[in-house]
C-alpha cells in the first residue's frame, strides 16, 4: 500500500485513533496488528517471509541467551578453582558456540534475501557467460516477486542479532515484541534502519497522547507529502521521458537529467522518510534521522555521513569494522607490510575492506551491474580523495583566505552535488555501457539551444510544472536553511497563527499542485522494489 494512496491515509487515521483510545498497555499490540495488516494488504503471500525472519531471529537470540547464561552460571560456581587460562578457554568456547548460532541465523535470513532478490540477476549473468563460451544451454530466469521492504527489515533484524551476539542489545524475551520491532509499519517500505537499543524499548513503552508530539508528527507528515507529491512525483514525469528514449535526449539533456534526478530522489526519499518519522513521532516514538542536509556537504565522505545515515552506519558497524579487524585481514596486513613496506602495507586492509563494503552497498541497492558500479565509483572517489588529502592540505595552506571564504565552500558543495548526481544517474539508465555513453554525449553533442528552444516541452511537463518544481525547490532550500540549528516546527510551535498559516498553505498546495490521481498516477517510491 503506497504512502500516497487514500487507503493508507484512512489506515493511518484508524491506527492513530485506536492507538490513543485503547488502554496504554495494549498500544504496542495495536501497532503490531496494524503492521501485519499493513503488510498483508501489500501481499498476503509475503507474510511468511517476515514471519520466518522474526521467528528465526527470536530462536537464535534465545539460544544465545541460554548459552551465555549457562556460561555465567558455570563460571560463578567454580570461579575459585579455575585458573585464568581455563576461564579464558571456557569463555572462548562459549563465544564460539554463540558465534555458530549467529552464523546459522545470518545464513538463513541473508539466504532468503539473496535467493529472492539476486537469483534472476545471477542466472542472467551465468547465461551471458555460457553464451560467451558458446554453450547453447541456458538456465530459465525465475521470476521471483520481492516481499515488501525485505532489504530493510532483514538488515534491521540482522543488526539486532549481531548486537545481541556482541552483548550490545539485551535479548527480547517476548516474540511478539520482537515481531513489532521487525515489522513496524512506517519504516517497512524504506527505513530508516533502526537499532534495537534505540527503538526496541520505545515501541513497547506506553505513550500518553502528547499534543506537542502529535502536532510535530502531523506537521512533519504534511511536509513529507509536500516534497513527495508536489515536487518528486511531478519531476518524475520528465525523468521517465528522458530515460525511456536515451538516444533522443542526449547531450545537455543528460546534465538536465542529473540535476532533475538529484532533486527528484532528494524530495522523494527525504519526503518518504519525513512521513515515516512523522508517523512515529505522532505515536510518541523517536526514529533515527536518515538525512542531515546532504546537499550542503563539501566532500563525498561528508556526503555519505549525511545521506541515508542509517544505511551508512549499518554497513560501517556490521560489515566494514568486522571485516577490517578480523584475523585473516590482520594476517594479510602483516604479509603486505613485509612485501610492500610499511606505508603501502598499512593501507591495504583499509582499502580492501572499503571496496568490499561499497560493493555490498551497491549490490544491496539493486540486483544489477549499474548499482554495483555505482557503489564502486563512490568507493573510488572516497579513496582517491583520501589519497589526495596531502595535496589538498598543501593547496589550503597556500591560499588560506580562499579556503576559508564562503564562495569556496559553495563551490565544494556544488562540486559534491554534481559528482554525486553524476554517479547516481547510474540508477536511471538501463545498463552501465549506456550510462557511460550518455555521460560521454554530454561533452560531445552540444544541443543547448535545441533544449531550451522547445525540447524541454517534449518531456511531458508544461511551463507551469517547471515553475511549481522551482518554487518547491526554493521552499525546500529555505526550510533546510532555516532548520539548521533548531527544527522549524519548534520555532513555529509558540506562534500558532504562523504555524497554521504555513502548514495550512502546505496542505492546500499538496491538494492543489500534488501530482496524484488520474491527472498523474502517483509513482511508487523509488525504493519500493527493495
Amino acid at each position: 500500500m503506497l504512502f500516497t494512496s487514500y487507503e493508507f491515509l484512512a489506515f493511518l487515521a484508524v491506527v492513530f485513533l485506536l492507538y490513543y483510545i485503547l488502554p496504554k498497555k495494549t498500544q504496542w499490540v495495536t501497532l503490531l496488528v496494524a503492521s501485519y495488516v499493513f503488510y498483508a494488504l501489500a501481499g498476503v503471500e509475503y507474510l511468511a517471509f517476515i514471519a520466518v525472519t522474526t521467528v528465526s531471529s527470536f530462536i537464535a537470540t534465545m539460544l544465545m541467551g541460554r548459552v551465555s547464561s549457562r556460561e555465567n552460571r558455570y563460571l560463578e560456581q567454580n570461579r575459585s578453582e579455575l585458573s585464568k587460562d581455563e576461564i579464558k578457554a571456557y569463555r572462548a568456547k562459549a563465544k564460539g558456540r554463540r558465534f555458530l548460532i549467529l552464523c546459522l541465523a545470518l545464513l538463513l535470513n541473508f539466504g532468503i534475501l539473496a535467493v529472492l532478490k539476486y537469483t534472476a540477476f545471477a542466472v542472467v549473468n551465468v547465461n551471458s557467460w555460457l553464451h560467451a563460451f558458446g554453450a547453447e544451454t541456458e538456465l530459465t530466469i525465475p521470476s521471483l516477486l520481492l516481499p515488501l521492504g525485505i532489504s530493510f527489515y532483514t538488515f534491521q533484524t540482522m543488526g539486532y542479532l549481531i548486537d545481541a551476539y556482541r552483548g550490545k542489545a539485551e535479548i527480547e524475551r517476548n516474540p511478539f515484541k520482537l515481531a513489532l520491532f521487525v515489522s513496524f509499519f512506517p519504516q517497512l517500505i524504506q527505513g530508516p534502519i533502526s537499532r534495537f537499543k534505540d527503538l526496541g524499548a520505545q515501541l513497547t513503552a506506553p505513550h500518553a497522547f502528547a499534543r506537542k508530539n502529535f502536532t510535530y508528527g502531523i506537521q512533519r507528515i504534511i511536509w513529507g507529502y509536500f516534497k513527495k507529491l508536489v515536487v518528486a512525483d511531478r519531476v518524475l514525469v520528465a525523468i521517465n521521458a528522458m530515460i525511456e528514449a536515451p538516444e533522443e535526449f542526449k547531450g545537455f539533456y543528460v546534465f538536465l537529467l542529473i540535476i532533475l534526478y538529484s532533486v527528484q530522489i532528494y524530495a522523494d526519499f527525504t519526503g518518504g522518510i519525513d512521513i515515516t518519522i512523522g508517523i512515529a513521532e505522532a505515536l510518541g516514538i523517536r526514529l533515527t534521522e536518515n538525512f542531515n542536509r546532504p546537499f550542503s556537504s563539501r566532500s563525498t565522505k561528508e556526503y555519505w555521513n549525511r545521506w541515508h545515515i542509517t544505511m551508512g552506519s549499518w554497513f560501517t558497524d556490521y560489515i566494514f569494522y568486522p571485516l577490517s579487524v578480523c584475523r585473516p585481514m590482520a594476517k594479510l596486513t602483516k604479509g603486505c607490510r613485509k612485501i610492500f613496506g610499511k606505508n603501502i602495507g598499512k593501507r591495504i586492509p583499509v582499502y580492501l575492506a572499503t571496496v568490499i563494503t561499497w560493493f555490498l552497498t551497491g549490490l544491496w541497492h539493486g540486483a544489477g551491474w549499474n548499482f554495483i558500479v555505482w557503489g564502486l565509483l563512490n568507493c573510488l572517489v572516497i579513496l582517491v580523495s583520501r589519497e589526495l588529502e596531502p595535496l589538498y592540505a598543501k593547496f589550503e595552506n597556500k591560499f588560506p583566505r580562499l579556503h576559508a571564504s564562503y564562495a569556496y565552500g559553495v563551490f565544494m558543495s556544488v562540486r559534491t552535488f554534481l559528482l554525486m548526481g553524476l554517479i547516481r544517474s547510474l540508477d536511471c539508465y538501463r545498463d552501465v555501457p549506456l550510462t557511460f555513453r550518455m555521460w560521454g554525449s554530454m561533452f560531445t553533442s552540444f544541443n543547448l539551444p535545441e533544449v531550451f528552444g522547445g525540447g524541454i516541452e517534449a518531456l511531458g511537463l508544461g511551463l507551469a510544472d517547471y515553475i511549481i518544481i522551482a518554487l518547491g525547490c526554493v521552499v525546500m532550500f529555505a526550510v533546510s536553511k532555516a532548520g539548521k540549528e533548531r527544527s522549524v516546527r519548534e520555532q513555529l510551535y509558540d506562534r500558532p497563527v504562523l504555524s497554521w498559516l504555513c502548514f495550512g498553505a502546505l496542505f492546500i498546495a499538496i491538494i492543489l499542485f500534488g501530482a496524484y490521481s488520474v491527472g498523474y498516477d502517483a509513482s511508487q517510491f523509488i525504493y519500493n522494489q527493495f
Partner: protein
Amino acid sequence: MEKLIEILQELHDDVDFYAEQGLVDDGVLDSLDIVAIVTEIDSEFGVRIPPEEIIPENFNSAEALWALISKLDEV
C-alpha cells in the same frame, strides 16, 4: 602511551592528541583512520580490538584508547 600517540601522530600530524577529547565526535578521525589505528595497535601491541569495542567513547581521546588497550590486554 607515547607509542600510541606516535601512531596517531602519523595519521594526522596537525592534531594535538594530548588535549583533543572529541576525535570521533568532531570528525577528526573517520572510519578509515579508526581501522588504520586498530591494525597498527594490533601489530605494535599485539592486542586485537574486537569490532564491538569500536565505539566513539573508546576512540574520542588518546587516554580512552589507552584505557581500552590496557583493559583488553590483561583480561
